[in-house]
């Protein structure tokens, strides 16, 4: 397959994926740093490069509501947002998931107010982790592009039929230009295939009610069905990640392991920091510290068993959380990993750091220091620490 090498920002890469996906409907409202995605996409609509019906609305709550309506009518539906926009959708996100509507959304990770801040952290996505959406994180523009294409297939697979969000790190990836390999339109079209919606509210031959009330009689069963669909999503993500690899040359799984096979200490993180960690690992290995990285790609559903197995051999674990859970115990990622290890009967020293909130920079040296810390103190500590905090 002939790939085209271009220079693109994360936002441009996601808009390009959307052009190739050519959804039936997009409903969106602008918000920094995701605005460009829809700005670029709207020019594709204007130039006739896509057949999408673009609905400009007055808020993100309305954007997601319009997405629900269009997806319920059987249209392949996409949107993009960030931060306050995502959490303004909160109410409708749960409805989209429970109606089993495979909407695909680009979410550019940004801090949540207050204080008001436009820069990257994962607070927005983590705030929606229990909404029933599949959540896929990207390290760079290439992964953002690849993940958008795969997300369509994952979300739309019959035994899944759930909405999915693909995230990039705000500004760091969304506004950073990188080398990107794009695939021919025809190949992407072939890969994602035709969409056969699970139901269609406009089908007069088979009238249905969408969004009806379910009380004590079947609400519980409804949630169990969503739970099962999430389990199926795990399988779908692996299958489609493999197939993607066969067609486009790069295989994707639940997480990426980097130099973990002989690693004494493994750091777990999400998004762009994984790349910086790779560079830190290269340098630390020169110093004789055997360290590795696990970059979680799929946060929902959470690959608990697989992560526990991957962390079994190491002497100590570092978890970097780019959001707060405010439980005073651990960040959202560390909480999940602790639960995964408990279920697998594994007790490991773990250092958990909250870092990068509101876009606070994270440098190679910061990451080297957390590895050095755990190599000296493998006892671990239940106390969650802040990385890169200014001294008072």
């Amino acid at each position, binding site marked *: 397959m002939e790939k085209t090498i271009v*220079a693109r920002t994360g936002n441009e890469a996601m808009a390009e994926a959307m052009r190739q996906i050519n959804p039936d409907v997009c409903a969106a409202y602008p918000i920094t740093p995701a605005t460009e995605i829809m700005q670029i996409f709207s020019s594709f609509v204007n130039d006739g490069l896509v057949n999408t019906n673009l609905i400009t609305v007055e808020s993100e709550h309305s954007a997601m509501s319009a997405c629900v309506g269009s997806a319920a009518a059987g249209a392949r539906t996409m949107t993009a947002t960030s931060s306050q926009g995502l959490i303004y959708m909160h109410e409708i996100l749960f409805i989209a998931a429970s109606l089993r509507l495979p909407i695909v959304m680009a979410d550019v990770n940004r801090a949540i107010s207050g204080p008001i801040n436009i820069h990257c952290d994962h607070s927005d996505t983590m705030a929606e982790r229990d909404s029933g959406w599949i959540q896929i994180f990207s390290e760079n523009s290439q992964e953002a592009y690849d993940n958008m294409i795969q997300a369509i297939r994952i979300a739309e697979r019959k035994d899944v039929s759930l909405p999915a969000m693909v995230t990039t790190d705000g500004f760091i990836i969304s*506004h950073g*230009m990188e080398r990107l390999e794009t695939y021919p339109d025809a190949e992407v079209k072939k890969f994602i295939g035709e969409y056969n919606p699970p139901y269609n509210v406009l089908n007069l031959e088979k009238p249905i009610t969408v969004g009806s009330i379910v009380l004590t009689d079947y609400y519980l069963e409804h949630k169990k069905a969503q739970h099962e669909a999430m389990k199926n999503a795990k399988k779908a993500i692996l299958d489609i990640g493999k197939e993607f690899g066969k067609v486009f040359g790069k295989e994707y799984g639940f997480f990426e392991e980097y130099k973990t096979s002989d690693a004494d200490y493994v750091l777990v993180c999400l998004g762009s920091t994984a*790349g*910086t960690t790779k560079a830190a690992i290269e340098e630390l290995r020169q110093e004789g510290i055997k360290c590795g990285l696990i970059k979680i790609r799929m946060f929902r559903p959470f690959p608990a068993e697989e992560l526990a197995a991957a962390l079994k051999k190491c002497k100590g674990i570092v978890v970097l959380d780019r959001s707060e859970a405010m439980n005073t115990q651990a960040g959202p990622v560390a909480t999940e990993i602790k639960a995964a290890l408990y279920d697998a009967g594994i007790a490991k020293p773990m250092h958990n750091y909250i870092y990068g909130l509101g876009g606070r920079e994270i440098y190679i040296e910061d990451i080297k220091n957390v590895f050095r810390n755990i190599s000296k103190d493998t006892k671990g500590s239940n106390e969650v620490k802040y990385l890169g905090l200014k001294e008072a």
Partner: protein
Amino acid sequence: MKNMVEIRWHGRGGQGAKTAALLLGEAAVNAGKYVQAFPEYGPERMGAPVAAYDRIADEEITIHSPVIAPNVVAVLDETLMDAIDVTKGLPANGTLIVNTPFDKAEVEKRFSWKGKVVVIDASKIAQATIGKPIPNTPMIGALLGATNLMPLQAFLDDTKKKLEKKFKTKPEVIEGNLKAISQAYEEVKK
């Protein structure tokens, strides 16, 4: 990252520091390199100090943190040098490129930088060739002349393609920019 070059652009809002970083980055990708090009996001106002960055390498660049020790610093507006420390993080073997009407000795005297200095009157070149004193494209020409980062012709070809899209109806802008880049390159090479 082996052989990675990091560049920091200093300018004032409106001078095209971000555009310079993106133009160079895109041209480098088209010349087969791996790049990152990104501006520093803060309050964006016409005339306020701004910075933008390039990372250019022969293999994938995984680092996603700000550039703190650039190999090259390009200053689009010499008056910035009184306001901010443009050589911050620049190692002794680094290169400082300044858009200024003054000569090298004068720049060296005024600022405590002991490393390599390249001076170029990019605003004057831009005024003469493009008709506007926007120094970003000739500054890229000077940077290519000072660093051998990529062949001049490859950059000219790429920029021409890009400008042809943007200035379809203004061929004189395209010609002016290409001339400005070449002229600055030659002046530095001299």
